[in-house]
Structure formats: structure tokens, C-alpha cells
């Protein structure tokens, strides 16, 4: 489904006299359809960099990120034109980190509904039902559904974030420590949801700070650094 070959990323900081910082070097791995690969390594090894290169938030320095897209065929996400990346993000590829980054002044329910409506082509009623059940399952209190997530606690924000990321059942999901700082019960619920998503066919690549967790949810682990 996705093959990363010799991915290297170096930042050149022009304002610091063209200082070069190598974030990752020669990363190579392969993930089969519906597989779940964990990325492991010490802090600063470049785990997040790899995910961000795959999502194209970072431009890869060299190497290839070959992805078998459902709509675009075999593509290299390192060099694909912007417009096609936008389309693949919209139809197939999700990204979730531990930080909630949503549009301000949109209610929690709408934050979760929006990708379902725009990406799955279902009616608002269907989307509302799916979003509501996800939020309930992640134990967001019902009286917060119409409030703005910016005002929520850290853990609540994180759960809204996860609900939004999984709500539209992306084909490929990149997870950057989505469960960091969640309590044990919440982590369990999130893992169950991820497990179901995989059964539906979603391929995942994830970073988890907890080694036990990493071993239990993924089916292979790639060590960086």
C-alpha cells in the first residue's frame, strides 16, 4: 500500500546563516494494505518528520514515498503536484496529532461532522448520527456537543481530534501520538476504535510514546535513529 524508500529530510535555516539540521536519514519501510506500522525511536530521531513528509506538511529532501492511491494510482507523495496531494488528503489520507488544530468558532459536533459530510457524501442526518455516536463513545459529555472545542480541557480536545480523524474512515491514517496524555480508559476506547477502523480496511502508521502500547496495536515496528 505504501513504501518509503531512503527518505531523508534536512532543514536549511537561511536566517541562521544557512545552518543545516538533519531530521531523518535513509528511512525505508513498507506497509501492506490494512497493516499497522509503528514508528519507534528516541525523542528527536525524526519520527514525526517521517509522518509529516508522508502528509506533505514537510517536503522530503530525497527518497520516495510510493503510495497506491485509490483514485490516482501509484504516486510518489514526495513529488506529487500540490493539487493531487490536496485531493488525496481529501479523499484518502488522514493525519492526527496530539494537538487539536480545528477551525475556530465551530462546534464540537460540527468539527466531527464536517469531514463525514464533505468526504463520504452522506446526508447531514446520517453524518450527525455517526458523529454523535463517536463523541458519545469517546465520552464527550452531550452538553459540550454544541460548544467550541477551543474551550475544552486538553483530554477532551484530544478526543474530539481523534473523533474527527476517524469519523470519515480514511483509507490511510497517520497518527502522531494521538493518545499522549489520555487516561487509561480513554486510551482503551481509542484503541478499540482504531482496531475497528483497521477491520474496515484502513492502513495506519503511528507513533506512540508508550512501548507496550506500540507493541499491542501495531503489527510491525520500524526503529528510527
Amino acid at each position: 500500500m505504501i513504501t518509503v524508500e531512503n527518505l531523508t529530510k534536512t532543514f536549511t535555516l537561511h536566517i541562521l546563516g544557512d545552518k543545516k539540521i538533519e531530521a531523518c536519514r535513509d528511512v525505508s519501510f513498507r506497509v501492506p494494505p490494512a497493516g499497522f506500522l509503528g514508528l519507534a525511536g528516541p525523542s528527536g530521531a525524526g519520527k514525526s518528520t517521517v509522518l509529516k513528509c508522508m502528509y506533505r506538511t514537510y517536503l522530503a529532501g530525497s527518497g520516495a514515498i510510493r503510495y497506491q492511491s485509490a483514485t490516482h494510482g501509484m504516486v510518489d507523495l514526495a513529488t506529487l503536484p500540490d493539487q493531487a496531494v490536496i485531493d488525496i488528503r481529501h479523499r484518502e489520507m488522514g493525519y492526527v496529532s496530539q494537538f487539536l488544530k480545528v477551525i475556530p468558532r465551530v462546534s464540537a459536533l460540527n468539527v466531527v461532522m464536517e469531514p463525514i459530510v464533505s468526504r463520504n457524501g452522506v446526508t447531514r442526518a446520517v453524518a450527525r448520527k455517526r458523529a454523535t455516536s463517536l463523541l458519545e463513545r469517546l465520552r464527550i459529555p452531550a452538553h459540550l456537543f454544541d460548544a467550541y472545542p477551543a474551550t475544552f480541557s486538553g483530554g477532551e480536545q484530544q478526543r474530539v481530534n481523534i473523533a474527527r480523524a476517524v469519523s470519515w474512515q480514511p483509507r490511510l491514517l497517520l497518527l502522531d501520538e494521538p493518545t499522549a496524555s489520555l487516561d487509561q480508559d480513554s486510551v482503551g476506547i481509542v484503541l478499540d476504535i482504531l482496531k475497528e477502523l483497521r477491520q474496515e480496511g484502513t492502513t495506519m502508521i503511528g507513533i506512540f510514546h508508550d512501548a507496550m502500547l506500540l507493541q499491542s496495536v501495531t503489527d510491525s515496528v520500524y526503529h528510527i535513529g
Partner: protein
Amino acid sequence: MQPLIRIRGLTKRFGSGCDRCLAATGPEHDTNLCPHCGSVLACNDLSFDLFPGEALGVVGESGSGKSTLVRLLHFEWEASAGSMDVHRSAAGSHLLAEMFPENGDYSRNLLLLSHFQRRQMRNALMGIVYQNPHLGLRMGVSSGGNIAERLLGAGWRNIAKMRQRAAELLEKTEIPIQRMDEPPANFSGGMQQRVQIAKALSNNPMILFLDEVTTGLDLSVQARVLDLIRNLRSEFNLSMLVVSHDLGVINLLCQRTMVMKAGHIVEDGLTDQILQDPQHRYTQLLVASQL
């Protein structure tokens, strides 16, 4: 997906120009003023595509050529060189059927149309919202009248229908209908911006130009205008060119962004990439300067 409009080599020079202008201006010289002939190259060899339904951001400091770009594309100023062509599927292309080569998907260069044809194309295809509402509105004419004027330009003739359309648009942009007969001069800055948006949308444009629309508004009003633009964009399936020096505005509205400096596009890419992994020296400075 094919672009809605394609811009190639767009250039605007003020002054006589000389054969050393190109080499002596641009981001590496940190100026758009040619030291040899004194010409100003406000926009220099700009090429890009605008896709259907996308919001494309343009960022850069004052004087980088952002507003000049908008004025060229909106046919307010004559370009010195370059081309702009539009896809056959664009609204208004029926008006200019002769502009489309028999087997081609794109029109001939719109920048070479006559004044009359350009006005027709603009009325059918484009809307614009300026930073300064005085540029987009007649301050002494009623708000409904401002919209009717635009509809007249687009070929509407029935007064009752125009009034109804104006009321609908003002309602969408959250102006109380009871005030539609008041001139924008009576309104606050945020309301004036919303009347401008209503006017810009009145002819159902496919392309909306937003030139620093929230600059100078206070924060809560800015938020309301941005929310409105976001909602209208999905409702009308607009393609937008969003010019702003505020990276927050660009981040909120645009999936793709171009960075301008001294009349050149120095970098373009996905907005999150431009903000998190800027490549060009100037973009890095711009992102690092964010509050």
C-alpha cells in the same frame, strides 16, 4: 482536474523599462525598482493556476506586488506582458464563444480582449472585495442600490427581482434587511465589508478576489467576516484568490499559498507546508516574524 484560470508570465511595469530591468530587480536585490532606467516592476513574470473551488493564498510584505496582481487579473490595470486564459466551463464563456479555439479547452489570452469584452467577462465571472470599502461601494447610494448597480452590469433589468436578490444577499451576509435602503456610509467598518461581499457575490461569480479584506477590522469583527467567507465559499463553490499579509487568515482560508517578494513569486505550496517547512529565505523570515 484542470485549472479554471491559467496565468503565465504576467508582468506589470511602471516606466519605460530597459533590457536590464529583469536582471536588476527581484527578491535577491530586495527591490522592484530598476536602478538603470528607474522603472518599477510591480509584478514580474508571474505564472500560476487557480483551480475550481480552491482558495489560493497570496502573502508577502507591503509593496511585494500582491494588490497589483489582483488589479491585473480583475482587468483594472493593463498588464505589460503575459497571458490569462479561462477554462471553457467557466461562467460567461458563452458570451465569448468566439474566444475559444475549436478544439481547445482554454480561451485565448483574456488580457488582449477589448475593454468592452473584458467588462463583460468580469461581470459574468468575477467578484472583488477590497480592503478599503470606498473602492468597492458607493458610500452615498443605498446598500440595495449598490447591489442593483452590479446586477444591471450583469444584464439584469427587472427592478423587483433585483430588489429581491439584494435582500437575499444582504441576509446571507448578515445585514438587517430593514437597513437595505440605507447607504453604507451609515454602517460600521465590518458591516461595510459585508455589504461589499454581498455586492461581489451578486452576479454568482466563479472567481472571488479578496484583497486584505479583514485588515483594519477589530478582532471579533474580523472573525465574523472570515466565518462568513468560509461559509459562502462552500455554498457558492467559489474559487478565491486571497491576498493578505496575515498568515492566520491565509491558514484559515487557503489550502495552497504563494509567497511574493519584490514582484516575484518566491515560493508556492500547500499552506501547512509553507508555514511549517518554508523553503525560501524570505518565507522563513516571514514565518519566524509571526507574533
